[in-house]
């Protein structure tokens, strides 16, 4: 299914060029499974073949991705009241928010190109936790620029062998996602183990 969708977008990018490429990255940034990373690497390869002007593709692609991120940040922002009503008094939510606020820039920056599966949840949390939009934009733009240049650059360097690059990046990204899941599990375990001690200390 996902391959069919990304295949459709690859065909359209070949036909319509930069505007369709920007639209694809926009769709990816709002969470639609269009295979944005795959299309980005492919466009790097197409640019190397002389199909596209890489500078224009990079600028328009970056624009599409940043606009998409802004939209998903806004979704979190406008859903803030609902989240606050539902989870606002929960200590876990308060802790998670405090934790996110401390390390938000790392999360925003790295999820743009390293653990891309977490980019949408990060945008929603950032918007929902009241994180400053200007700061979000700064780290988001830096992260997306790294994504566009790194993935597009790899596609450019490897040319027609770009599928091998995508295979590596796709697997490596999921490997890192696993590491994040383990990290979250360890963090939860530590906070659970800490609870009885705190109770003992307070009594």
């Amino acid at each position, binding site marked *: 299914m996902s391959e069919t969708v*990304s*295949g*459709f977008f*690859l*065909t359209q990018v*070949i*036909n319509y060029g930069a505007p369709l490429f920007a639209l694809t990255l926009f769709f990816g940034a709002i969470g639609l499974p269009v295979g944005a990373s795959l299309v980005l690497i492919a466009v790097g390869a197409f640019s*190397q*073949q002389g*199909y596209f002007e890489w500078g224009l593709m990079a600028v328009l692609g970056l624009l599409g991705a940043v606009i998409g991120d802004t939209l998903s940040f806004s979704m979190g922002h406008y859903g803030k009241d609902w989240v606050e009503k539902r989870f606002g008094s929960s200590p876990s939510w308060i802790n998670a928010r405090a934790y996110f606020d401390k390390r938000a820039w790392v999360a925003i920056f790295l999820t743009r190109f390293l653990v891309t599966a977490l980019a949408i949840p990060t945008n929603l949390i950032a918007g929902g936790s009241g994180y400053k939009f200007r700061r979000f934009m700064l780290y988001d733009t830096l992260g997306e620029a790294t994504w566009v240049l790194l993935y597009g650059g790899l596609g450019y*360097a*490897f*040319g*027609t*062998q770009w*599928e*091998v*690059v995508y*295979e*590596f990046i796709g*697997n*490596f990204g*999921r*490997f890192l*996602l*696993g*590491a*994040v*899941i*383990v*990290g*979250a*599990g*360890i963090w*939860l*375990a530590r906070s*659970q183990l800490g609870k009885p001690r705190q109770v003992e200390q307070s009594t």
Partner: protein
Amino acid sequence: MTKQRLLTAGLILIGILVIVFFGINTIHALKRLRGHGPFNGKPPVANQTDVELVRDWMTIPYIADTYDVPPEALFFSLGIPFEKQNGRKSLKQLNDEYFPDQPDIVLLQVKDAIKAFQTQAPPPPSLPPAPTKIP
């Protein structure tokens, strides 16, 4: 063990499984990656010659340009009219439209046509002409 602790243990276990599975895949992908592109010091090629890299999302004009083959020759070998509209369709779309009973036939035929062109041999006999266009 409380429900919360079970959930945490489950999370760590899933994470470890994901790490192991995709870690192995990453190593295999890295090995394949080393055999291509910048890692073996070869400059990127201008025109592709390996027909196994033709995919069903590609369009005829794109393939023609990449493999340096005239697009009309590819359309001719398929028995499909060389029209602007068909030039925007992927091989899969052309297959679904003109040869719905023969899956992947367009992809295979295009590969054969490129090979034939590359060896300077006459293009292989074309497929039986598509009688009707299925909407």
